[in-house]
């Protein structure tokens, strides 16, 4: 029984041993977790890269609609046609592919917190047959945006389920220390804890930060948190522009197409054989911008600095 490392080594060697790149044989399969827009945009970005580099476009695109049984069918094709690289879009597709495919490089995109999900060992050296482009905007970047929005900020609050996002919050604590911000983390073990947690936290913090925690941000809870943040007049930094649209004060955002481009570049590197997949670090968003909800800002009585307003996407 060969160990995982041995396997990876072997597949790496195999790739290295390929004498030349035959373009017509460069099969790339794309597996989308679902049909939502961010995945489509990312795929578009990847295609752009392939075109520019003279590679053929992605041969086959699968939308598994979040369903493992549809994935099974895609897997059959993969086993038969043996593509050079499998591109995955979203966490669901990535995890399924990682579970069933060990001998083909998997390049993901549009995945948030791949480290915490266990998709990669670390962003710097992902390990295994996997790499890709994550949506993780570094916490430092996020906090700097908080400082831009609310320069007088002292206490930043966050709601989290220790079992789910404990690691992220722990690391964020260190970052906050460094930036001389006090991060107050309020644990939410189940939905029922939420009202109490909100009440406790929102009274004492200047800004509410957020991590992608499924326990905290279930659909009904998102609405509640947004509403409560406005009632407590706490500037709320949401996870994505969707949050801002729904009433959160602001969020940082990445460029969906550029995420795809980053993944596409990793694919090119693998196919050209210029780099071993295990050596390709996970990319993080290169182009970060800010979204602001102007109405929320006026409701909670916050004046947004002009220099931010200029480069922000503003929802009115």
């Amino acid at each position, binding site marked *: 029984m060969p160990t995982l490392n041995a396997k990876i080594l072997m597949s790496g060697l195999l790739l290295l041993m390929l004498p030349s790149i035959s373009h017509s044989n460069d099969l790339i399969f794309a597996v989308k*977790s679902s049909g939502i827009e*961010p995945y489509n945009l990312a795929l578009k970005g990847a295609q752009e890269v392939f075109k520019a580099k003279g590679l053929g476009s992605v041969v086959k695109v699968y939308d598994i609609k979040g369903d493992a*049984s549809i994935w099974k069918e895609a897997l059959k094709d993969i086993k038969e046609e043996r593509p050079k690289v499998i591109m995955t879009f979203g*966490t669901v597709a990535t995890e399924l592919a990682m579970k069933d495919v060990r001998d083909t490089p998997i390049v993901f995109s549009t*995945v948030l*917190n791949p480290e915490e*999900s266990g998709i990669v060992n670390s962003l710097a050296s992902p390990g295994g047959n996997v790499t890709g482009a994550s949506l993780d905007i570094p916490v430092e970047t996020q906090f700097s945006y908080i400082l831009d929005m609310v320069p007088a900020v002292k206490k930043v609050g966050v709601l989290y389920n220790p079992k789910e996002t404990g690691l992220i919050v722990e690391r964020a604590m260190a970052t906050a220390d460094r930036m001389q911000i006090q991060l107050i983390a309020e644990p939410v073990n189940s939905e029922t804890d939420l009202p109490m947690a909100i009440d406790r936290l929102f009274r004492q913090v200047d800004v509410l930060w957020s991590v*992608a925690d499924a326990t905290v941000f279930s659909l009904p809870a998102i609405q509640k948190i947004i509403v409560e943040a406005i009632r407590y007049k706490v500037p709320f930094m*949401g996870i994505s522009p969707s949050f801002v649209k729904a009433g959160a004060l602001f969020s940082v955002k990445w460029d969906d197409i550029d995420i795809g481009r980053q993944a596409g570049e990793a694919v090119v590197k693998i196919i050209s054989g210029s780099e071993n997949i295990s050596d390709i670090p996970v990319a993080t968003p290169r182009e970060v911008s800010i979204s602001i909800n102007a109405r929320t800002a006026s409701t909670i009585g916050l004046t947004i600095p002009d220099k931010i307003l200029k480069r922000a996407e503003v929802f009115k």
Partner: protein
Amino acid sequence: MTENIVSRFWAGLSLVQKSIIVGSVLFIANAAAFTISFGNIQERYQINFLEEAGTAIAKTIGESSKFGIITRNWDILSAQVQGLLTGNISSITILDVGGNPLFEITGSERVVLDDAAVRQKTLSESPSSTERLFDPNGSLHAIIVSQMIESEKRPAREEIGLFTEKAGKERIGTVIVVMNARQVYRELAESRKTFFYLGLLAIAVGISIIVIFVEFTARPLKKLVIATQKVADGDLGYKVEIDTKDEIGTLASSFNTMLERLKETQEKLVMTERLAASGRLAADVAHEINNPLAIMKNYIYLMRKKRMKEDDPNQPTLTIIDGEIDRISRIITQFTDFYRGYQIPLEEVEILGTLKEVIEFYRGKLKERDILLEERMMGSGKVLANRDKLKQVFLNLVKNAEEAIPEEGKIIIETGREGGRIRVSVTDTGTGIKAEDIGRIFDPFFTTKGVKGFGLGLSVTYGIIKNLGGDIEVASEAGKGTTFKVMMPTI
């Protein structure tokens, strides 16, 4: 052999006993059929109920056990599952996605299962399934219900930001509920026993009802039988008192009708006898009546001749009274003649001469009525008789002939000898006698002439002729005429 015994036994039973036996057999067969079919329905119902209960329990556990499974909290799981454990449940097992048992609780009577088959079940894609396990002898052994336990899938992290929390559900395990069917059979056996006793009770009640019913039906029959025996013993006055509307009632009423007819016929017979007896009696009485009549008549005569003038206004009344006395006397005399005929002294009487006397007596009257008289005297003879009586005979015949002719017609009087006998016949072209009356014309008091006739003429005639050893015959055709023929032995 047995057939013989059975048929002999059967033949020896009364109708009532037979009815009771047939009714009871039918009733028991009916009850048995009902019991069996009810038992089957009950079995099916119980098994379906068991299956439904198992499915419901599996579903409930599938819903409630998620938290315990996700958190691997056996205390919570145990508390939830324990609360659902009933006598019918053999075991409840919760397996993880891989088919490994996480938790199991066993009921009072565990059904041993093939673990590999159970594991297979957990890997199957179907969300729920039901399987019935049968014993080698075909009776249900257990019902295995498996139910997939699903949990809301957590959205992928990036999906939180995208508000796409429609991740759906994912399987987190399987619950397998094994229902013990043996319990059902035990309960069925128990209820069958109850049903059996109830059935016995029903049969007892049913048979009693049949017996009572048959008794009620048979009672009129018994009455009929008694009536038949009574009638056979000669009691015609007996009446069967059955007023049921059924066939027995009809039979009873026709039996009663028959009895009435029988009684009528018998009464007629009795009356004829009585008539004969009373006739004789009347003859005796007549004598006793004649005497006071004679005295009355004498007093009337004396009253009219000696105490009254000839123009007394009471004279016509007395004439009428005198006439009526004569009439009574005549009737009585005729009676007496009829019944005492044989006592009258006999003499040699020449027929033709006697007949001529009667014809001469009647000739005027016939001429008056334009009735033709034809005499065909072709023989004569002497007979031993009473001259007056014989005259009476011929007179009656001629009188009847004359009375039978409505306006005009003919009377033929004929004589002739036939062997040692003389024949006298009187034929008329009158109305004739109706066929239905011909048998009764010789009866005393039979008349078609209303108040004008007494109906004694022919009966007296018959008596006289029979007395002298002769015969009288009649031949008649309605609308054409009648012939009376008298035959008398000659000396």
